[in-house]
């Protein structure tokens, strides 16, 4: 190992904030995806200035850098694909300002999503993006990946709720973009950096909008005997221009697994359930409940239940949000996919996914944001069986290709990361890559920040120049 960088980092941060022994860095090799990539050094800065100093040191030693929040990401965005220094923002977890009157909060990137909502609740406010991992994922990670969640159907994804950022550029410069009120004089840099997956700059502070809690929330559970009926219901709800705040589907296979574990009240013999939520004024919510019930019944719902109290509502949502944990009881590992289709194509897409599952020999479950066409097929597999893992990946690529073919997207909320970098040419042309490359290089010219993400590794045009590892630490690759 080049001892210089570790020494200098320890001098800068203290030895308790720098990890470099293989048994320590091993813990940072994974995130929530199926990818792997181990950093050589993991550091825990407590301020923007320290982040800037770390970045300068990494530049001095010519070592790549990757930022990381809680490591719950699902595309390998926060993995050190080519080793180097990983900056974990766990200790930059303070809410710096909560401005209730203007409905804004200024937070450090390590603040946990749910903690911000908890802090805002006494003011009748909350932070709208709510990924399933909201009790552990950080807002910095949400911003890097432009995270979504069930309630983004009505309220938009992370980018719709971020008004300003403080950035640390690869040369250590600290820059602020955007403004607290949200209006930009000049280009919408905030809009560019949100969702850029840590490939343009590190994010060291975030200004977000807080939303006002609605007066009434109604949660419905619609139970169906066929997946087609459930899918047709979603298509019809959209076509009738009813806008629920969330519209989630669990197919029979998934809901039985979840029910065994959570006991949320999903009927074990149904083929699919829709978990639908409406919000707003009391008068508007009750009207929407009737409209949605009518649509469900028109598509042969076996039953439509309305949660009678908060406890029942929380239980239904617990079933949805902890589904992936429940699936852990079924197989050593699960591969959660993330693709998007036009909502009018939902029934055929679900049939196609089932077909692909049958052809590839995997049972594929579906638990997803049906209301915005954001599919999350789940493939159960055993990571110890390399051949099986390869087949799982092939099935996944098949599904994602299908999404693109019907006019959809590669990823709705998990990001491209390492997982889908090679699939990007399905959507983007050489001219698109040329431009994205020039923009990448305008901010991150040496690819020192999060190398090997978003762009296909095999794309000609002077693609991500993967840096060498730091001396002997590189052995593990």
């Amino acid at each position, binding site marked *: 190992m080049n001892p210089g960088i570790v020494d200098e980092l320890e001098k800068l941060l203290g030895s308790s904030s720098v990890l470099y022994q293989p048994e320590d860095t091993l813990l940072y090799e994974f995130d929530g995806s199926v990818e792997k990539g181990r950093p050589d050094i993991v550091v825990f800065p407590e301020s923007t200035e320290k982040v800037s100093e770390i970045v300068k040191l990494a530049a001095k030693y010519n070592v790549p850098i990757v930022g990381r929040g809680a490591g719950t990401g699902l595309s390998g965005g926060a993995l050190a694909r080519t080793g180097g220094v990983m900056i974990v923002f766990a200790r930059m977890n303070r809410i710096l300002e909560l401005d209730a009157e203007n409905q804004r909060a200024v937070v450090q990137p390590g603040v946990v999503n749910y903690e911000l909502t908890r802090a805002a609740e006494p003011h009748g406010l909350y932070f709208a993006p709510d990924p399933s991992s909201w009790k552990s994922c950080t807002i910095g990670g949400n911003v890097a990946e432009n995270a979504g969640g069930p309630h983004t159907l009505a309220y938009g994804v992370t980018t719709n709720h971020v008004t300003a950022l403080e950035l640390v550029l690869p040369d250590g410069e600290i820059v602020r973009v955007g403004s607290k009120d949200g209006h930009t004089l*000049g280009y*919408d840099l905030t*809009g560019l950096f949100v969702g850029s997956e840590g490939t343009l700059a590190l994010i060291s502070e975030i200004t977000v909008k807080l939303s006002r809690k609605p007066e009434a929330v109604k949660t419905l559970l619609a139970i169906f005997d066929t997946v087609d009926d459930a899918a047709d219901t979603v298509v019809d709800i959209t076509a009738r221009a009813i806008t629920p705040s969330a519209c989630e589907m669990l197919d029979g296979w998934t809901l039985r697994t979840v029910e065994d574990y959570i006991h949320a009240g999903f009927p074990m013999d149904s083929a699919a359930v829709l978990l639908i939520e409406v919000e707003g004024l009391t*008068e508007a919510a009750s009207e929407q409940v009737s409209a949605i019930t009518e649509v469900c019944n028109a598509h042969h719902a076996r039953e439509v239940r309305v949660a009678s109290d908060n406890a029942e509502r929380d239980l239904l949502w617990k079933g949805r949000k902890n589904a992936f944990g429940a699936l852990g009881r079924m197989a050593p590992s699960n591969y959660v996919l993330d693709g998007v289709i036009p909502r009018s194509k939902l029934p055929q897409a679900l049939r196609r996914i089932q077909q692909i599952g049958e052809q590839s020999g995997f049972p594929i479950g579906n638990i997803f944001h049906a209301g915005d066409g954001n599919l999350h097929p789940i493939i159960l597999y055993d990571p110890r069986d390399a051949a099986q893992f390869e087949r799982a990946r092939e099935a996944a690529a098949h599904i994602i290709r299908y999404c693109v073919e019907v006019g*959809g997207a590669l990823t709705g909320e998990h990001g*491209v990361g390492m997982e889908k970098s090679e699939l990007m040419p399905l*959507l983007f042309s050489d*001219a698109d890559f040329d431009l994205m490359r020039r923009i990448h290089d305008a901010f991150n010219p040496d690819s020192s920040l999060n190398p090997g993400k978003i762009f296909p590794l095999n794309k000609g045009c002077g693609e991500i120049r993967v840096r060498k590892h730091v001396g002997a630490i590189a052995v593990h690759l």
Partner: protein
Amino acid sequence: MTTTSANFAANLESIVGASRVLTDPASCAPYAVDEKIPAAVAKPANAEEVAELIRFAALEKLAVIPCGNRTKLGIGMPPSRYNIALDITTLNRIAHYDPGDLTLGVDAGMPLAKLNAALFEHNQFLPLLVPWYSRSTIGGTIASGIDSPLRQFYGTTRDFLIGAEFADGTGKLCKSGGRVVKNVSGYDLHKLLIGSLGTLAIITRLNFRTFPSPLASRGFVASFPNAEGAVTLRRVITESPLTPLTLDIVSPELAQLFATRAPATPEVAVFAGENQALASKSLPPIGNWIRSNEWQLCAAFAGTPEVLARYERDLMRFAANSNATSTNVLDDTTRPTLWGRLRETLSMLIEFSPASLIFKISILPSHHAAVFASLRKVAADASLPHAFVARASSTIYFALLLAASDEDTSARLSPCIAQIFDFSSASGGRASLLFAPASIKRGTTVWGSPGSDLALMRRLKSAFDPQNVFSPGRFVGGI
């Protein structure tokens, strides 16, 4: 015409055909930007022709300014160079529309009113009630970054633009985003095009999510003798469970203008229930229900009869608690007379006083009452008439009303401009001079002092447009 321009006109003709190139000064004059007239106007018929024109311009080091129906070309600094106007109004088709998915792809030159007319057939719309509504193209609406009173409820275009296709400065056709409502594949480059004034790329197509059009809607107006009353009521509303579609504070001077004038552009029925027969006529006079010497808080709301009743009840109660001097609920007959004017505020101000200075000031709502007072003081000190609207709890459009500009008024205006920029940034906000006569603009900067992010913007500009072909000099920091 000089020999050089004759040559380059021939080149343009070889790309788009002779009938789509204008070179005589009289035809080019309407394409002037801040009094600078281009040597030629080219009207490409498709994206490929746009790209070819850009490649030619890049090769010849010519400056290109894209335009739609040219209603907002006055925004920004005077261009440092301007050779070709790229008129994109021939690109005007709906490329795809999936009403069941509430998504749409449309060519940049499509008129907004025509687009919404097509969407209304499916009870959908784009919530963009922007000024010059009956003439604006969708591309110009995006590139100018102009906003709409409906942003209070629906957000700005950044919240519902889901993808774009465009030609970059090297003349290559590129895209970002896609056609679905949720998408994180690749960089969100289309967001950068919003408000970019044609400095990054030539937009050829835009993809949006569409929205169900409100089925029944009402307007509400409360009048107050002072700004504080209106600001207080606005705060009570934003802290209540009500989510109105629009929420604007109108200054007494603007209310006076609304009461005495109508916008020059024909009216367009926007919501269900409005009189379609009005569509090609001008707006009828506003009713005597507006107390035109007072501050107005104007809100619009929509929903079922029960929801409408709830809004009326709550708004009336809130207004009474805020000591409003009068309150009115407006129905489908009366509401358009006010909302047409709210939508057309900027066009009306310019029609009323062509040499007006219109500032766009974005500032958090908690500072609004203080900023209103500062703005009025600036105008009073310079003995200039003024009018303003504070939109969607965020942006203030403030006009110093001038019928004509001369040296004397220019001299009086410089300190006003500086003061407005200064107290806006002192309150944590940002001001820009959105519209002003070219003579005023040449002596100042309309963008105020640049922020620390200017260097990043320059890098972006170089990445999109390495040879500086697009709209040079019009943007922030001389970009």
